[in-house]
């Protein structure tokens, strides 16, 4: 990998992020009765999209906000401007990653997403998001934040609305824990700006649907876990080799589930495990054979066990060494482009490791690449210590606030003079590891208690 390219400045990026920051600062104080400084900040955001088809609508929105007369449509326009800017940053970063990894993206653009259905509950979500924008992060209180509860409860049972429901649930929990906003020491302005504008966009567009099917062999690279208090998602990154001899592609397979906040660690794997047989294949070092598996243009397999069966042994490091470099990368749907979504599988070896307190850095071909060990799930055998002692690493290249990092999915390291591979997601499919078995037992007990309580109290 040309790690040197990851350090080089990208033309226009700082300017785009400055406009995003300006918009985020306007949201900190709220848009109900904006001060001149906030109007100026929003104008900066509007100016940044002045040469795009959004120009007219965003300029009008800023005018209405300045006059204290903004309605939902105007907040949507502001969210769209922010989304467009970050989309352009995503594209510039992705182009740089392709240069650095020598991998090319799939040609073409993922087609536009389907329109969202369930108009009533989506309108209710939009109305709550508009109230948030009016109040600003400094103006949030318990009454305002709890307004999301009913909307979320109405959405959660419908898997088609799960994207927005899981996002709002995680977002509202953070806001609730931060009330009253007036007393906050500091505000996660970028993050809440992201979550707010993502949610706003999702009230209008439900995202990509499977556009085709995949038949061939899927070779897992590793498992990436996401979680907030009441939802978790595991995503398997893999190389897909079509049986028709077409070029290999990078794909993902996901499974997610809402959860009580007391189900944690190994308990999350237990909830997810039954619904994605690929998780067990990762732990066992096996490939899987697909026949007609639905797949989106974004490279997401929409897993259904009926279309998959266990395949031959496939070592993730062999896949990473041999097949990864030749696989093409999928292109995200236009509205989904955002730097936080960049998670590009990479294979690194021949690096040196620097440790400064808890911070690890790989030096790859003379260039420093910070290692994000914090994202490695604690319910697994991969530890920061194992990463620090590693000689080869399968990871996800990510970007946040101006810096590329690598999140380890698996490493090759030496334990008791033996070379071993340690996977972050090794416990996803189950484990015989002593600590793992203990964690599994505790998690099973927790779920048993909750199910017993639910059985006794819920249906009365």
């Amino acid at each position, binding site marked *: 990998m040309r790690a040197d390219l990851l350090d080089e400045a990208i033309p226009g990026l700082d300017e785009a992020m400055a406009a995003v920051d300006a918009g985020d600062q306007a949201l900190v104080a709220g848009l109900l009765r904006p001060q001149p400084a906030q109007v100026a900040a929003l104008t900066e955001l509007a100016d940044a999209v002045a040469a795009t088809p959004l120009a007219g609508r965003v300029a009008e929105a800023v005018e209405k906000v300045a006059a204290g007369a903004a309605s939902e449509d105007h907040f949507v326009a502001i969210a769209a401007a922010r989304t467009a800017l970050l989309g352009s940053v995503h594209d510039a970063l992705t182009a740089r990653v392709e240069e650095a990894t020598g991998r090319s993206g799939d040609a073409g653009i993922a087609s536009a997403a389907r329109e969202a259905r369930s108009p009533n509950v989506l309108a209710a979500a939009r109305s709550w998001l508009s109230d948030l924008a009016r109040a600003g992060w400094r103006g949030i209180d318990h009454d305002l934040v709890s307004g999301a509860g009913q909307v979320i409860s109405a959405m959660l049972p419908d898997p088609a609305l799960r994207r927005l429901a899981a996002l709002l649930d995680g977002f509202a929990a953070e806001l609730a824990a931060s009330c009253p906003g007036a007393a906050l020491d500091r505000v996660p302005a970028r993050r809440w700006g992201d979550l707010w504008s*993502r949610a706003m966009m999702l009230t209008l567009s439900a995202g990509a649907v499977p556009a085709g099917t995949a038949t061939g062999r899927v070779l897992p690279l590793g498992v990436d876990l996401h979680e907030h208090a009441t939802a978790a*998602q595991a995503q398997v990154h893999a190389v897909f080799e079509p049986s028709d001899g077409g070029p290999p592609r990078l794909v993902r397979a996901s499974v997610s589930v809402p959860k*009580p906040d007391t189900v944690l660690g190994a308990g999350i794997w237990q909830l997810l495990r039954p619904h994605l047989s690929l998780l067990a294949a990762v732990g066992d070092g096996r490939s899987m054979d697909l026949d007609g598996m639905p797949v989106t243009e974004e490279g997401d397999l929409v897993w259904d066990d009926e279309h998959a069966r266990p395949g031959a042994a496939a070592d993730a490091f062999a896949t990473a060494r041999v097949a990864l470099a030749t696989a093409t990368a999928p292109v995200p749907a236009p509205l989904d482009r955002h730097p936080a979504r960049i998670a590009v599988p990479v294979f690194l070896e021949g690096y040196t490791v620097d440790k400064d307190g808890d911070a690890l850095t790989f030096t790859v071909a003379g260039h420093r690449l910070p290692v994000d060990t914090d994202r490695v799930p604690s319910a697994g055998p991969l530890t920061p210590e194992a990463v620090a002692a590693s000689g080869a690493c399968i990871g996800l290249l990510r970007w946040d606030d101006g810096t590329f990092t690598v999140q380890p999915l698996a490493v090759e390291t030496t334990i008791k003079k033996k070379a071993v591979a340690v996977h972050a997601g090794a416990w996803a499919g189950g484990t015989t590891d002593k600590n793992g078995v203990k964690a599994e037992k505790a998690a099973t007990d927790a779920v048993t208690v909750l199910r017993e309580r639910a059985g006794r109290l819920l249906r009365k």
Partner: protein
Amino acid sequence: MSDGRGPDWERSSTARVLPPARPRKLAKVPFVELADGRLQGVVSSGSDIGRVYVSSVEAGSHTFACSTNNNRPCGGARGMFCNHILAMVNEAVLQYGGERVARYLKVEPDEPTGQAIARDMMSTRPSQGDSAAAATVFSQFLRHLAYLELPPTTAPLPEMQWFPPTRAVV
């Protein structure tokens, strides 16, 4: 990067706002939360498997309440915290960490333990509230249990990229 140790928290898309809860045994206190300006939760009855107590302590005033899910007052909560409330405080400390619980309840105990937090709150002789909140707390608990019944999906949720796990312990 502000300090060379990672992104600037205010300008990070994946800034960690909520520390993750810690696993705990749920048999005695199946549910506890810091919400609506209260520490509130549900405590299983030691004697009747079909009964639970709904307990709460208000942040700041420390006004407390405890009653059964059928809205009968708890016999132990006469003028002072009952054992259900004490158990709830202890379990909240296990789940959220003592510092977060103390901060939420607006107490400054000598040490961030459940005992010290409860002692601190009781030292101000808080008043006993009515059980008006009990219905809300109980329905929150049922909502919480209902999460176990929600179907999983294998359609991707790209927004979960904003919610990475963290190894940090509270």
